[in-house]
Structure formats: structure tokens, C-alpha cells
């Protein structure tokens, strides 16, 4: 695994969430290869990108963390992760995180990556399958719940 293609997403997630909500993510474990299926923690957002390589960032979090992020950033209390404002907020946070990481990758490695719009979804017992892609995850903790960052690149990771 070429860490230069993965670390920008992890760093961007920590920085942007701290900057936007003042929520600290601690205890991020090192990136580990995932199975082909992931069970959502509650709310998930996917951004895909294409350029010199194709790939995908998945940000997955527990409902309590999504509600705290929405409450802090939007200044209103929310109690349902299926609320369109909560879904839109998580989607926008992922957009900013991915935009930041991809700008760095394009500047450093001339990858010409372009982002598709974010997809966000919430439901019960949701399983996400990523056919044919090797993906790597890192988990972190906040005072409001767990977060997982999952990154995949097509055609390997170098």
C-alpha cells in the first residue's frame, strides 16, 4: 500500500472535522485491509473520483456523532439521522474532506482527479459492498461516537 495515496484522506478528515465542529478524533488506528463488505455504523457517505486513477472515499459514522456534527455546525438540534439536513450536512462534510485531500494529491502527483458529487445514506442494517476494489480502513473515536474512514483505489494502490 502506497501510504501517500491514503494518508491525505485521513489527515483531511481529522483536520476538517476539527475545523468545522471542534470535535477531536482520537485513537485513529493504522489502515487495515477490509473485507469486500462493510456494515454501516449508521450513516455513510461515499465520494468517488476519476483521473489518472479511480478511487473512492467512504466516511462512516455512528448516528450520535452525525447528530452532534449537524447540531454543532448548523446550530440546531437534530434527533433523526434520516433528516435531510443531517444527510446533507454529512454529505457536504465529506465533499470538503475529499476536495481537500484530492487537491493535495493533484498538486503533489499531478493525478488530475475529479470528484463526483457525494452520496450519503442512512438506514438500518445497511451493508456496503465494493466489488473488485481493495480497500483500507482506519477507525477513530470522538466524544460523540465512532468514525471509520475507508479508502479504495482501482488497480491496486501504487
Amino acid at each position, binding site marked *: 500500500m502506497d501510504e501517500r495515496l491514503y494518508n491525505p484522506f485521513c489527515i483531511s478528515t481529522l483536520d476538517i472535522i476539527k475545523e468545522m465542529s471542534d470535535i477531536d478524533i482520537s485513537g485513529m488506528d493504522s489502515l487495515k485491509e477490509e473485507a469486500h463488505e462493510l456494515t454501516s455504523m449508521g450513516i455513510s457517505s461515499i465520494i468517488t473520483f476519476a483521473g489518472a486513477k479511480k478511487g473512492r472515499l467512504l466516511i462512516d459514522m455512528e448516528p450520535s456523532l452525525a447528530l452532534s456534527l449537524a447540531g454543532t455546525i448548523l446550530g440546531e438540534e437534530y434527533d433523526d439521522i*434520516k433528516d435531510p439536513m443531517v444527510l446533507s450536512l454529512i454529505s457536504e462534510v465529506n465533499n470538503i474532506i475529499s476536495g481537500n485531500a484530492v487537491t493535495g494529491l493533484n498538486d503533489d502527483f499531478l493525478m488530475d482527479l475529479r*470528484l463526483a458529487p457525494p*452520496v450519503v445514506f442512512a438506514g438500518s442494517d445497511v*451493508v456496503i*459492498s465494493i466489488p473488485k476494489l481493495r480497500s483500507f480502513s482506519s477507525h477513530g473515536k470522538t466524544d460523540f461516537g465512532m468514525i471509520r474512514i475507508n479508502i479504495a483505489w482501482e488497480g491496486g494502490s501504487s
Partner: protein
Amino acid sequence: MDIKYILPFLEALKGILEQFGATDIKRGNMTKNDLMHVDTDITAVVGMVGRVRGNIAYSMATDTAKRIVSAMMMGMPVEELNEMGRSALGEFSNMVTGNASTLLSGSGIQVDITPPSIIFGRDVYFIISSVETLKIDMESSLGRVEVNIGLEL
């Protein structure tokens, strides 16, 4: 959203379904939504970048997915959607969106597609675009596929 951006996806889906032997292909009504609520079991989402940015989601019941995968595997019976079946569904959404992007390119609209993701679960609420999402049902002998198209032009 101009119909010229929508029709390639419907033509591509019809073409791929026909290629796998589906008959009685009928297009249902088109509705506009901000939030996409899916009450089927499986949704395959493919992204698009270039002159047009967006996401296209294909949702279907498990039985429909099994019939499509079986048709893709020359009629081999599909009892459950194992890793190979899920991979075939990803390929199905890739083929439809890839063919649609070729049709768009033929009209001078250059786009590239991104890797598919398959989401399993009922009663799932999605947002696939910050602008409106168009929903169209496509019925065929293989079952109903609900197509949600969210393009940012």
C-alpha cells in the same frame, strides 16, 4: 434537467437489459425528488465526472438482482448473491453507465465514470445530488429497476 442528459441512461439500461434477454421492457413515469427513499433491497451507485457531474443509482429487489445476475451468467441459477453475484451487479451498473457515457460523448458531452458501490438494505434514505434527483422505473421480464439520476450540470 434537460431530457438530452436523461435519455442516454434509459436507452443504455434498455439496451443492456435486452442484451441479457429481457423482454417487455417498459418505462414508467418520471418523478422529481430531493431525497431518494429506497424500499427495495439493493442499490448500485455509479458516479460521473467531466462535462456533467453526478451519480446514477439503480435499485432493485433481491429477486430481480438474482434474475439479472443469472441472465448475465448465461442462465446459470443464482440462489444467493455471493461475492461473484455482487461483482456482477457492479459490472451491470458499470455497463449501463458506461454505455450511457458513450452516448453522451457522441453528443459532444465528454464524461468519465467512477467505481460502483453496492448498498444492501431496505428503507434506506439517500441523497445522491445537491440538486434534484429524477426517478424513473424500468419494468421488464427480469423485474423492476428503479433508476435515480442526479446530475449537476
